């Protein structure tokens, strides 16, 4: 697993993570029901996020498409979100992509199905229950 990332910033202080604490703080504060958190919680969350990014990237690269390759693609990530239990919480934001032509075809077929249903109910008498 990755070592603690320690760098030296402009003030000569050690940096435990490269993600800006101010931004992490904003996101944490936007979480509903959270009233407050201390500095240690902030620092750990920032560090955890950095480790998470590393993990998501390497996992998706390795298992995303099943082949050796030279690039990490969006599909690798959405496959991971769909197939891995650990990353399931990302399934809604890393949706699988579909070709526009396929999608339009799907819509068209759905519309045709609905039209058929409507035609059927028009033909029957008024004593039909409303759907």
């Amino acid at each position, binding site marked *: 697993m990755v070592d603690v990332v320690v760098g030296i910033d402009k003030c000569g202080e050690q940096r435990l993570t490269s993600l800006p604490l101010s931004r992490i703080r*904003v996101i944490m*504060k936007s979480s509903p029901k*959270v009233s407050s958190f*201390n500095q240690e919680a902030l620092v750990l969350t920032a560090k*955890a996020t950095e480790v998470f990014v*590393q993990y998501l990237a390497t996992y998706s690269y390795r298992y995303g498409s099943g082949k050796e390759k030279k690039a990490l693609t969006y599909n690798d990530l959405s496959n991971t979100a769909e197939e891995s239990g650990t990353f399931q919480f990302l399934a809604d934001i890393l949706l699988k992509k579909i070709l526009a032509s396929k999608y339009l075809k799907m819509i068209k077929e759905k519309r045709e199905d609905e039209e058929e249903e409507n035609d059927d109910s028009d033909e029957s008498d008024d004593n039909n229950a409303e759907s």
Partner: protein
Amino acid sequence: MAERPEDLNLPNAVITRIIKEALPDGVNISKEARSAISRAASVFVLYATSCANNFAMKGKRKTLNASDVLSAMEEMEFQRFITPLKEALEAYRREQKGKKEASEQKKKDKDKKTDSEEPDKSRDEDNDEDEERLEEEEQNEEEEVDN
């Protein structure tokens, strides 16, 4: 507090660097992939914070602390994160301790100086600035971030 949408995103350059350092040399990352990982990271923060908050509430506390975050990782099935996080926490605590001792030492030195000779005016200004910065840092340590 109104947040613009971009405030909930993490800086692209930093995210890209973290990814590049994690992957083998020569592997490209598509723009879409990078953007997706960035969004995933923001969602991760929200999920982790919400989860940590549950632990704080269980402990009847209103302020999230380090152990809540660690418990959240366990709960989210990211046990593999716990070791590096504990190391980071220890390093952070050592750093804070060092800063505190340094500021206390500076105060002692300053007191010694004012007791003895007449202080140099310009030297005083520098000391004041340092003290301000150190005071801010001490405040940050104890600061509870309220919503």
